[in-house]
């Protein structure tokens, strides 16, 4: 493709006065018979190539930096994920520890309750033994007094009657207390 002589001269004049040259791929399809314009075209192509080379270098640098940034961002995200995972593990461990603590406390509580029941059981057994023992002894004394036709039979009879009443009352009181405690404990569970 050829330009008119006037256009060629105008472009040359602009390049001399303002240092502005044609740019782009258009330069590669322009042709001329004018030696001055040929020089102008060569100079323009040379400048255009230089600019393109600079742009390629710059673009590649930016691409490299972008890749580097992406890599760093990816590493950061990876670290963030690792931190999140650690935090999650920590929370899980904390939860497990809390659960273990509750279980331990529960076990201690169960153990304490068991001990208390065992103690109550022992007390009740002893109390019942004492009651039964006293009952047997007094009854034996009363029977013995009646068989020997003792003058103390009436006194022992009254004592036996009073004592038996007290023992029965106490026995039912103890049984009632035990049943009450047992019922209350089952309700709490």
């Amino acid at each position, binding site marked *: 493709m050829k330009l008119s002589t006037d256009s060629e001269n105008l472009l040359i004049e602009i390049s001399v006065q303002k240092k502005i040259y044609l740019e782009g791929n258009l330069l590669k399809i322009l042709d001329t018979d004018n030696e001055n314009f040929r020089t102008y075209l060569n100079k323009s192509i040379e400048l255009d190539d230089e600019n393109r080379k600079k742009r*390629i270098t710059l673009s590649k640098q930016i691409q490299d930096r972008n890749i580097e940034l992406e890599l760093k961002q990816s590493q950061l995200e990876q670290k963030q994920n690792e931190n999140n995972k650690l935090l999650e593990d920590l929370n899980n461990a904390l939860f497990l520890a809390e659960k273990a603590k509750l279980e331990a406390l529960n076990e201690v509580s169960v153990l304490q309750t068991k001990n208390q029941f065992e103690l109550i059981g022992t007390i009740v057994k002893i109390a019942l033994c004492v009651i039964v023992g006293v009952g047997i002894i007094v009854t034996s004394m009363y029977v013995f007094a009646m068989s020997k036709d003792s003058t103390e039979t009436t006194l022992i009879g009254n004592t036996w009657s009073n004592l038996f009443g007290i023992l029965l009352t106490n026995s039912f009181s103890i049984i009632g207390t035990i049943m009450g405690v047992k019922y209350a404990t089952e309700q709490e569970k």
Partner: protein
Amino acid sequence: MINSILLVDDEDLFHIVFDDVCSLLNITLSLETCYSSDEAEEKFINWYANENNKPPCAFIDLNIIGSSFDGIELIKKVNTQYGNNIVIGIISSSVDSIEIEKAKSVGAMFWIVKSDNLEPRLEKFYQDFPKYQNKTKEFTVYK
């Protein structure tokens, strides 16, 4: 010189680099660019109806962000639905052999590895271009 080339790539900067390299190496003076495979498909549909201005060569990126399908799928569509008859291949930073085989199987004619040292690969491709047009060149990976 190749009349015109179609470049399908989601990266702006690569458009600039590719344009400059093609100009410096006198590969082509007319570069048409697309940012997605959907946009490129539209163009191929139009060229299928009217072959005017259809570029003789197309470089398709493998993974095109913002597209509903990848470069291999686009090549498959072009070769099976939109008239073929174009030197078409992949330009990608990937060198995954499975992807390369997939591209070959759908009719890609070349695979150019996109990296810093792009110029010698494009120069080599340009030398082979007439053979691709004659369909006498085997599928080639330019590493």
